[in-house]
């Protein structure tokens, strides 16, 4: 293959594989920017995947499936929010509990949906005009899922909101110094709830994308650890929505490159590449001292009256 088409191909696959990662990461960025770590992304994604498939298959409308996934993701995030914000439980454990519960529940409820092929997967689209730019056109703007395009636009919008608007200042302040925000009359709990639920909605959509578009079917545990990779990417992206796009594309690209090396390696080695890359990505972030950019109050429950 010529190097041109090789680039295009790599970018295309990177974006396709990266779309659920992007949606998940954007959501987690907002949750963590408000100071709440959500380790339940895996659970939310899998529940989203199941509900999306079930609704899409029963109604024949994949978009309803995505909507259902969003709702389910938001609801499950609400559970995590309740335990970690209102009850001030350990955020890490609460998220883990959500993942365990989500994986179990989806396995339980999904038995009747296994092995069926979705009759109406999400359509793909090409953006007119932009699709004809050399190299970037076919890579980015041609024949991708709607969710991919929406995801990219969403990244830009979320970046803008976070850094250039009043809401952004509120969210970032809550994550940096909740006592300060509280003293200025901001309802810290409400902001955190909203951000966590928002993160859940996006995670749900990410899962829905998997079962309704990427692999239009349902299998138990089909997210295969993507939720964890999302968390790693959140750190790698330094909690910045635009850097998240870069990180996601990079990750997707690495994964695809590994896929290209299939000829020389046993298939299991390829399958473990994403997980090894996630560790690599975090190690690189550590070298870049990204951790310093973390929201200062990340992971700490807020109690009024304590500093």
């Amino acid at each position, binding site marked *: 293959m010529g190097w041109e088409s090789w680039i295009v191909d790599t970018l295309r696959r990177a974006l396709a594989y990266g779309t659920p990662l992007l949606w998940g990461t954007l959501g987690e960025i907002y949750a963590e920017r408000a100071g709440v770590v959500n380790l339940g992304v895996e659970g939310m994604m899998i529940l989203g995947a199941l509900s999306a498939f079930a609704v899409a298959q029963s109604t024949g409308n994949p978009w309803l499936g995505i909507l259902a996934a969003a709702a389910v993701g938001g609801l499950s995030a609400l559970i995590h929010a309740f335990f970690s914000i209102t*009850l001030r439980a350990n955020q890490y454990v609460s998220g883990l509990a959500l993942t365990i519960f989500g994986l179990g529940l989806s396995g339980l409820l999904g038995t009747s949906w296994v092995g069926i092929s979705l009759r109406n997967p999400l359509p793909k689209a090409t953006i007119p005009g932009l699709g004809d730019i050399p190299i970037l056109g076919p890579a980015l703007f041609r024949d991708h899922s709607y969710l991919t395009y929406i995801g990219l636009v969403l990244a830009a919008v979320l970046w803008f909101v976070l850094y250039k608007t009043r809401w952004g200042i509120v969210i970032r302040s809550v994550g940096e110094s909740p006592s300060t925000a509280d003293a200025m009359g901001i309802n810290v709990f409400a902001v955190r709830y909203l951000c966590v639920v928002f993160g859940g909605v996006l995670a749900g959509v990410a899962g829905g994308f998997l079962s309704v578009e990427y692999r239009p079917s349902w299998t138990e545990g089909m997210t295969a650890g993507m939720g964890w990779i999302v968390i790693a990417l959140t750190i790698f992206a330094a909690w910045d929505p635009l850097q998240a796009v870069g990180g996601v594309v990079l990750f997707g690209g690495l994964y695809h490159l590994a896929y290209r090396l299939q000829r020389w390696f046993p298939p299991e080695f390829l399958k473990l590449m994403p997980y090894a890359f996630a560790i690599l990505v975090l*190690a690189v972030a550590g070298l870049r001292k990204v951790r310093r950019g973390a929201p200062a109050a990340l992971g700490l429950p807020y109690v009024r009256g304590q500093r």
Partner: protein
Amino acid sequence: MKRIGPFVLERRLAPTRTAVLGYSLLAIVIALLLMSIIFWAYGVSPVKAYSAIGRTTLGTRFGLMEILRRTIPLLLCGVGLVIAFRAKFWNIGAEGQLLAGAVAATWVALFSGIPAPWKIPAMFLLGFAAGALWGIIPALLKVKLQVNDVISTLMMNYIMAYLVKWLIYGPWRGPSMRGFAYTDLFPRDAWLPLLAYSKVHWPTLLIGLVAAVTAALILSRTRLGYEIRVAGDSPDAAHYAGIGFLGVSVWVMLLSGGLAGLAGVGEVAGIHHRLLEPDHVSLGYGYTAIIVAWLARGSPMAAIITSLLFGLIFAAGDEIKVTLQMPFQITNVFNGMILFFLIGVEFLLYWRVRFVGKGKGWAGKAGS
């Protein structure tokens, strides 16, 4: 200090033992109640479900042996995780460390050429080492590069699972039937002895009990245990006191990973006698052990009890799968709920509820 109707909530400085026990039990009871709802939603009578469990799992010798059998890996992994959690090292990788131990045991059994009487000790030794190694890598990554321990240990699980798959589909491939691959059967001298008419490989159980006691002693009576507790409770104080995080983290993960590795040895040498697909070797013991350790609240001895509890849950899950045709995933649902409610009732530990009746202001309380 809050007033809700006729009750007054007062903040408490430290939870009492009875409160801890009571609220933990409360969490389990709530989870059981919710479980009934799920049973009912699935079309199964909760009464039928619980009585089936009561009759078979708790009521027969076979059932009790099943509980014990499930307890063994939970106990080993659980004790290891108690140590890790005491140092605030979130080892979610017990699953992978268990598999590492299983791999090492398989190698000793099938490919090492070690003569008969030394085979079993060698399996345990190398299994411990393999698990320890698999655990130390994330520890080094955390100390040197601040790599998040949750993610790194978790990713190592997936990596090890695929390594196992590669081994059984590739170089270590034995006969395969029905699409699942596995290695050859271990030679008899690599089989762990079992309790009569059961699947309880008692050497591993013994090791587990010894490990619990040893861990408790280490934490309370040794310098290492002291440093682990300081580092876990207050990293700033540990830094101030010159306690090296590298040393502590490596030791902690060595022990934690090693114990999980022993669990893996037990599973392949005691139950299956071959290396199988990863999720057949471990039914999520590594993940469930997290709840075992959490419920044990930092005490390796308490892990003995909590691992029995979850052994019961696993065995009950088996029973439900067989008699009620519900998927085994139901145990994950239950485990997730228990964990939620466990952390949910934690805040109750710091509040004391008193009944003051109507209309009383709270005059006369100043000074108490």
